[in-house]
């Protein structure tokens, strides 16, 4: 299947040199040009704010052909939360194809068969790695270079989420703070991204890695408020002995190039518990590497994320 035969050394140098191109993945999220190889992007948000969905949206734009507004590149999704849904991705792909197809192509899209062919071709550029344990996850990161060599068009790595296996790592005998855990992963991912010239995005719950880390992570009932406080003080006092704490938060920040924070906007709806639920609105707060910050708003419907034009 290869047109040329090259030595392993040449292949690896070719891959590692990469192109310095910026990839214009999403003009709504990243209006000033795109993402550069080697960058690390964090997507954080509360439960059900659309982090996994945003990953699928970005994947759609990556894998679709350029005739449909995509980058026609490969992506690998490391799914630790069983959140990948083929049906949802197919809906998103359909939406993108219909919205962004070139005029020449758009006129032929009344044929559903053609739509399916484009979807199938796009899916062939997506690779999925499911991890059900911390060990599997760590090994999967080690296995990525092999995948990079086999699939040279693969440019994006998405991880959902990096917090999944934290409580496997943090045991009574081996306490580790959430931000330490995250920083260790960010370091590995940043190194991987830089060495292989890939763009890495990861999701995490917004409460993960914060100052008062473990508070409220576990409660048997409402009276366990006291329990959770004890949990957090114990963890943080132990951490004092773990690492000389030069503010870990800021060093983690330097590893991450861009941040996207998703939040639900509380809608005090007049109708209360009416059947016709008012559409839940969300905001995405984006912080770029050059300190630019801006906000975007969106709804979630059955075709994925629907950006609200300002």
């Amino acid at each position: 299947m290869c047109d040329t035969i090259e030595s392993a050394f040449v292949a690896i140098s070719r891959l590692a040199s990469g192109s310095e191109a910026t990839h214009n993945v999403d003009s709504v999220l990243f209006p000033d040009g795109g993402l550069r190889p080697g960058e690390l992007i964090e997507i954080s948000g509360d439960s059900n704010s659309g982090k996994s969905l945003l990953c699928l949206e970005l994947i759609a734009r990556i894998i679709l052909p350029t005739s449909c507004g995509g980058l026609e590149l490969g992506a690998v999704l490391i799914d630790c939360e069983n959140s990948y849904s083929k049906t949802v991705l197919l809906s998103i792909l359909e939406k993108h194809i219909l919205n962004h197809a070139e005029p020449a192509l758009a006129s032929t899209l009344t044929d559903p068969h053609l739509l399916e062919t484009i979807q199938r071709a796009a899916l062939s550029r997506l690779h999925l790695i499911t991890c059900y344990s911390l060990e599997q996850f760590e090994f999967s990161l080690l296995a990525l270079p092999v995948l990079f060599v086999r699939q040279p068009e693969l440019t994006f790595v998405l991880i959902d989420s990096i917090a999944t296996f934290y409580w496997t790592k943090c045991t009574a005998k081996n306490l580790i703070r959430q931000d330490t855990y995250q920083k260790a992963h960010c370091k590995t991912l940043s190194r991987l991204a830089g060495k292989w010239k890939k763009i890495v995005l990861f999701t995490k719950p917004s409460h993960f890695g914060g100052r008062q880390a473990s508070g409220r992570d576990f409660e048997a009932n409402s009276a366990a408020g006291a329990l959770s406080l004890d949990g957090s003080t114990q963890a943080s006092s132990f951490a004092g002995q773990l690492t000389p704490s030069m503010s870990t938060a800021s060093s983690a920040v330097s590893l991450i190039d861009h941040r996207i924070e998703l939040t639900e906007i509380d809608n005090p709806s007049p109708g209360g518990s009416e059947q016709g639920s008012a559409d839940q609105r969300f905001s995405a707060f984006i912080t770029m590497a050059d300190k630019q910050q801006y906000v975007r708003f969106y709804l979630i419907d059955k075709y994925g994320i629907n950006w609200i034009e300002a």
Partner: protein
Amino acid sequence: MAATQLTADLHPLLTEYVIKKLQKNRLTTVYSFVKVEAEQLLKITNLPAESIVLVKNHLIDQFAGRCQNAQSYPWQPAPSPLSTGVPSLDALLQGGGLLPGHIYELCGESGTGKTLLSLTMASNVVKQPGSMAYFIDTKCDFSGRKVQQILDSDDRKLSEQELGHAMARVRVERIFSPDLLVQTVEELAAGRYVDEGTNLKLLIIDSLPSLWYLYQDAQSSVEPLGLLTKLICSLRKLAAQRAVAVVLINLTVRVVEGMTEGKRKLCPNGNYSALGRYWESAPGTRLLLERHEHHAGSSARYHTVQVWKSNYLRSGERVIVRMTESGDR
């Protein structure tokens, strides 16, 4: 989940002798072996460089998550959704029922019909010959009689024999410790407890808080959270690899005044789900059950089922379900 130990059966080149030498240098787990530089391994094991690379690559390949192309994953063709036996609920779930491979959670205050709904689902699943439902009971709420009533109340009457077979396809296990629960789920994921010729289609766990209440007075929440992680990971593996729909039962807890530290996701009636913030994003879909006002003069009770959170359904959608003696309608 302890890291896997390095043993001789992992690769023909890893002989007992090599393992002993590695252990002397404190390399006991597979991961530590793979992370160490090849040069160092050369010195420790005296194996040739190609062999070391070969073994490393083999181990990485074996222990990493399966990498699949999205075209062929998940299963082709997709297994059909499991009807819950309640038409309005099937419509709410958009595919016509519970999706195999997905994890659902029924959440609500006591007495909102969670157990009954799960029994209805189980009964409906076992109507199909060859389909098995596994019910893990932690509260001794399972009632065989209820299942029989539900099966009996079907429009298409089952014969005595069919009824007997259907009831035999509902496996009930009483479990009272979180460790045993995790172990059972792992065994189910490995294919145990399922008879020849039947497929496990539905797993119900009723309920989770009753097991994790054991940790209520614990000093730290590290252990219960570790077990919850283990549980959800094993459930995801079971669901994905065996095409099983999983239904968990959880409670909602009332907000106590003054507990504002750390924002929790509140459901429409102001409660939040038990088991803590970590568990909020564990199930793929969380359905909230609430009591609906009585319709005067009717013996049936009405409950609403609302989508609280989901990664494929629209949150906020709800239906009203009628609970009768013979299950939900």
